[in-house]
Every structure is written in structure tokens, then in C-alpha cells.
């Protein structure tokens, strides 16, 4: 009222004094003591860092959307209740898929007042941010990034919701064994390909090491690594063909997955199928749409959304409404989970103090998430002990958005899996 009057009449000395006095008094009574007590801020800043541009924009954008979906949901439910309904505000950062940029962005977000960081899809970038978070004593919740080495040093501020490489490999071996027994097929010769970034290299090497260490009855007949963002894989596929593998186990990214499949079609690489030990490339809407029939029957061992969980159904419905033609997958699903985990910890910490938040994160037991696997519980190194993988497969379905199906484990399966696959050139594509 007073302000309005001032606007109309212009500021004169008497009004100015009156207003200042009133404001001062109000501040003294309500504001300052509250601040001194360390009570609830109106907004809690969280730094979200994803590779929104660079070689992996589809994934980066999907993950940022996952982060936002969770933050909006928390805010719509009334914010962090233990802090007087403080709202979450995401500082959106782009690491451009580069380690150094990721670190710089994280540094800036911390300066801007981020109390916690979330991200960043890429293992290399996650390493860079993890060291910074440890230095600056800011909790860092990794939504997606699998490389074992990130948490191996036992940083006290780093927590990972996603499965680490080791989990991928044990479940890959279990599923492989099951598939061979159930379908009565002989798989002897395996070829491995991977992109040359930190995750691709780590994941590819971990799979080969696992096969050798556990003396699994397979021979790795070819291992090919190519640079991230490669634009021609014809020579590589020719090499694969010369190696005559029964099965291809690729660690890919969206662009090279498309190149690989098309080249395999043209060069007629005969296989029993593709089973990825766990990598993107094979389930994104862009891949399913562009490749159509050629996308069918690829099996991918990835942490995945649990299609039967009500939480998934509810969140995915909102996601699909916001972004038509997109759906929650392993990446956007974990991005969503990451922010929910932070909100849960903030609720219990009742404070944005790093030590309190870290303590709360350490005691996390978060069930209400949309992914396959049990509640999020972090071990002493910060790894989620209940992160699990599912086998997903692209199967024929008139509706593009419904083609990616969970096929293993049986309790989450939406459809029976197909193996061996139908050769690419026999599909009438």
C-alpha cells in the first residue's frame, strides 16, 4: 500500500523515512534473527552439469530434462518441507562432453552458491568434477557415469546412483549364461568394439578382462576401438567380418551405433546377434526411429526404468507430455532419480550445510524411484549397492515409443526376448 502511494505521489522525504523505518522494523523483527538462526533459504541451488552440446547432445538434453522433471516435481509438491518449503533451483550447466569444461562449469556453479552438484553422464567428466567436489567440500551426486575408478579413491563427497562397471559385468555374464542355456545356442567367438572415450574404453576393457579373469568359455576374436564422434566405420566392419565372430558386444554412442548397424547391413556381417555389455546408442528414440527395422533385436545390458513401477508410469507420463516422442530411459531415468535422491537428503538434513547434507546422503535409503533394482543405498565408497541392470531389446511394435522393452530379468520383463536375431538384410528394411 505504502509503496503504491509512493509510486503515485513520487518520493518525498517524509514518505521515504516512513517506509524505511517500516521496512527496517520488519526486517529486525522477522528477517535478521531468522537468518542468524540459519533457517530456511527460499531457494536451494543445485548445479546440474550435462553434455548438452558436443558429440552427445541427445543424451545431454534428455538428462537435463530428467533433472528438471524431478526438481519441478519436488517444487510442485511444496519444496523441501523441513526447510519451510524451500524450492529447488537447478543451475543448468553444459560440459560440452569435455573434462576441463565440466570442471570449470562446476567451479562456477559452486561460486554461484550451488549446495550440491548432479550429473554428468560421462565418466571422464565425472572424474574431473569429483576431484573438485572433494576439494571444495560440496556433495556431488552422480546420476549417470559407470567407470569404477570414479569412486575407487573413496571421496567422501561423491555419491553414485548409477551402476558401476563391475555390476554391469557380473550381470552381463549372468544374462549371457542364461541366454545360451535357454536358447541352446553355441557362442564361441566374440568381437568387442568400443568408442575411445573414458567410459567406452573402460567398459570395453572391463568386459574383456571379465571374460578372461573368470575364464568364461569365449574367445575374444577382435577388439576394435574408434574415436568418439567417428564418421566412417566401414573399415572397422570389414575387419569384424574378417574375424568371423558369433556375437558382437559393442560399447557404443548414438552416432556410431547407427553407422555400425548400416555398415553391418551393407557388408552382410553374419551374427547370432548383438549383446551390448552396457552402453547407450541402442535404445534412444533417435536410433529406434532412424534405423526402424534395423534397430530390432539388439540386446543391451543397462540399468533401466522398471516399466512395472507406478513411479515410472507416473513420471514417464509427465515426461512424454512435456517432450512428445521422448521417454524416460536409463539416462533420463537416472537423471530424474539423482535429483530425487538429493531432495530426499535435503529433507532429512534440514539444512544446506555440506556436512549435514553429506551425512544425510550417506544414510540414504530411497525406495521411491522408477528404476530396476532396490532402494538407493550408498556403500562406504559412495556406490549405490542396489543399482542393477536389465536386458532391454528393441522389438517390433507399431508404436515407435513402445519398441524398447525390458526382456530380462523375468520379474520386470515386458516381453520374451528374441535370440538369435534375424539377419539385418532379411528384414525387408
Amino acid at each position, binding site marked *: 500500500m505504502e509503496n503504491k502511494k509512493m509510486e503515485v505521489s513520487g518520493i518525498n522525504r517524509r514518505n521515504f523515512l516512513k517506509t524505511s523505518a517500516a521496512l527496517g522494523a520488519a526486517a529486525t523483527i522477522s528477517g535478521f534473527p531468522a537468518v542468524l538462526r540459519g533457517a530456511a533459504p527460499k531457494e536451494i541451488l543445485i548445479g546440474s552439469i550435462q553434455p*548438452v*552440446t*558436443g*558429440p552427445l547432445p541427445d543424451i545431454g538434453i534428455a538428462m537435463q530434462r530428467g533433472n528438471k522433471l524431478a526438481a519441478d516435481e519436488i517444487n510442485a509438491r511444496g519444496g523441501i518441507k523441513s526447510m519451510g518449503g524451500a524450492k529447488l533451483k537447478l543451475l543448468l550447466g553444459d560440459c560440452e562432453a569435455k573434462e576441463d569444461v565440466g570442471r570449470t562449469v562446476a567451479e562456477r556453479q559452486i561460486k554461484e552458491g550451488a549446495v550440491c552438484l548432479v550429473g554428468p553422464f560421462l565418466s571422464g567428466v565425472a572424474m574431473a568434477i569429483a576431484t573438485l567436489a572433494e576439494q571444495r567440500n560440496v556433495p556431488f551426486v552422480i546420476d549417470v557415469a559407470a567407470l569404477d575408478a570414479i569412486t575407487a579413491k573413496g571421496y567422501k563427497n561423491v555419491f553414485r546412483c548409477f551402476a558401476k562397471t563391475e555390476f554391469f559385468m557380473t550381470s552381463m555374464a549372468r544374462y549371457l549364461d542364461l541366454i545360451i542355456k535357454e536358447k541352446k545356442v553355441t557362442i564361441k567367438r566374440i568381437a568387442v568394439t568400443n568408442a575411445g572415450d573414458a567410459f567406452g574404453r573402460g567398459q570395453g576393457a572391463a568386459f574383456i578382462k571379465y571374460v578372461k579373469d573368470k575364464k568364461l568359455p569365449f574367445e575374444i576374436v577382435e577388439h576394435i576401438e574408434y*574415436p568418439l564422434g567417428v*564418421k566412417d566405420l566401414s*573399415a572397422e566392419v570389414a575387419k569384424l567380418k574378417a574375424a568371423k565372430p558369433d556375437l558382437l558386444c559393442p560399447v557404443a554412442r548414438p552416432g556410431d551405433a*547407427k553407422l555400425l548397424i548400416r555398415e553391418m547391413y551393407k557388408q552382410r556381417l553374419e551374427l547370432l546377434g548383438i549383446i551390448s555389455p552396457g552402453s547407450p546408442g541402442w535404445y534412444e528414440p533417435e536410433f529406434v526411429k532412424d534405423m526402424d527395422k534395423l534397430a530390432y533385436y539388439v540386446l543391451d545390458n543397462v540399468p533401466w526404468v522398471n516399466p512395472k513401477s507406478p513411479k515410472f508410469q507416473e513420471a514417464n507420463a509427465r515426461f512424454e507430455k512435456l517432450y512428445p516422442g521422448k521417454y524416460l530411459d536409463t539416462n533420463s531415468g537416472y537423471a530424474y532419480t539423482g535429483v530425487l535422491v538429493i531432495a530426499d537428503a535435503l529433507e532429512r538434513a534440514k539444512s544446506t550445510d555440506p556436512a549435514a547434507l553429506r551425512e544425510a546422503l550417506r544414510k540414504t535409503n530411497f525406495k521411491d524411484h522408477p528404476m530396476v533394482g532396490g532402494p538407493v543405498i550408498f556403500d562406504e565408497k559412495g556406490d549405490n549397492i542396489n543399482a542393477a541392470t536389465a536386458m532391454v531389446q528393441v522389438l517390433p511394435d507399431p508404436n515407435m515409443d513402445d519398441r524398447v522393452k525390458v526382456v530380462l530379468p523375468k520379474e520386470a520383463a515386458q516381453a520374451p526376448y528374441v535370440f538369435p536375431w534375424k539377419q539385418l538384410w532379411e528384414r525387408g528394411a
Partner: protein
Amino acid sequence: MNTDLVLQLALQGFLMGGVYGLIALGLSLIFGVMRVINFAHGEMMVFAMFLTITLLLFLGLDPYISLPICAAVMFGIGYLVQRVFVNRILDLPEAMQVLVLVGMGIIFENGTLMIWGGSDISPKTSLALSAIRLGSLTIDVPRLIAFVLAILITLIVMIFLKKTTTGKAIRAAADNRFGALIIGTNINRIYGICFGIGAACVGAAGTLLVPLMPAKATMGAPYTMISFVIVILGGMGSLIGALVGGLIIGVAESLGTVFLPSSMKQVVSFTIMVIILLFRPQGLFGGRG
């Protein structure tokens, strides 16, 4: 060693080399005539790729049909870029020219990002998946067509430069700018046309690549680099050099994967560049050095 594999790789590299040659042709022509290096070359190619994809998705035009359209649009863009920007920097020191052209590259890349976004896009085209089998060899049809058309376009450009009045004027301007001015050549127009032809060549190459690989807004820079390597190999300003250089680099990169890990593919082409710079700095077909 597996002979089939080596043959297959050599063949694939050779066919790809034709397209490399076409990309480098534009760069070589522009350098040969104006003495500027078009650092926006790869980005212009990517722009043309997206143009092709747009025509395919919205009008249903197959890349081989939209090729002349894309080349014409790129000619126009090249002509404008030359008249508006490049013409003003021709007499400036090289470092300043580089800044402007690198800036052009950034504008093209981000323009592409703004219009088409950052995803890998590879829509279905009619011949993208066809291949011919000859015994154990596979010939990729889109690659073969790209090769044939690339050679054809190169020949057309060469004949144009040798036989037509405009072509002769371009060559005159390249040989002696001052002399060309004295005999009344409209040098600005000639330069504009020349840059336009360079852009049209790289635009055509972009169109030919659409059935071969997913397009992505940020993929241009390596193509600028590779065409630069090819031009150095073939000889700066030599058109036949660009073609031969393209073929050599294509085969070398492809065969390199037999001996080296794929992630080190580029080592091959840059090694060739270093060797050429050491022993024959004027390039294979370069006269003036």
C-alpha cells in the same frame, strides 16, 4: 595377412577418397585464385548436408535429385560470403584473414545448430543400404555413386576453367591479379564466382555424404582439417592434386586400420602431411611451391 580384407579396405578407401577429393577441390580452388584458406570449409559442408536432409524430409527429394539444388544454394551463399566478407580481407595480413574465416566457420556451425539442433540425424534414403557383392568384396552403392559423381564434378569444374571465358578469367586472376585488372576483368565478380564454385563443390560433397553417415552440426572441423591435409599433399591450388591427394588419403586412412588401432586413423593422414612438407613442400602437383 588377409588379402580379402586388405582389398576390401583399399576399395572402400579409394571410393571415399573421391569424395575427399571433391571436398578439397573447393578449398584448393579458392586458395589458388584468392590466396585465402577457407577455414569454414567443413562447416559449409555440414550446412549443405542439413540442407539436403531438410529437402529429403519435407519435400521427399532424394539426395541425388537435390544435389544440383544444394550445389546452387551453396554457390549463392559462397558468392555472398565472398562479396560481403572475404573480399574485404584479401589484402590484409594472413593472420587477420584466418580470424575472419575461422569466425565464418563458427557462424556456420552455430547457425546449423540453431536451425537443426545438435543430434545425429540420418534419415532413410533410397539407396543408403544397397551394396553390390563381387565374390568376397562388397561395394557400397552410395559410396560408389558418390565417387563417380565426385570425379564427374571435378572434371566439369576443370573443363569449365579451361574452356569458358569466365573460367579463363578465373585462371587469369589467379595467375596475375594486377594483369587481369589491367585487361578489364571484373575481378570482384570473378572472385565471387570462384568462391561460389568452391562452396558448390563442398556443398555437393555434403549432399553425397548424407546417405553415408549421420549428419551432426558439430562435425565440420575435422573435414576442414582433412581437406587442408589433402590440399597440402596435392599441392596448394592444384585441382588435379586435390583429387589425387583425396584418393591417397582415403586409401591410406582405410588401410591404416589394418596396422593401427582405429582410434589412431588420423595419425596416418597427418604423418603423410608431415612427410610431404619435409620432402616436397610444394605438394605432389604444386608447381610454384
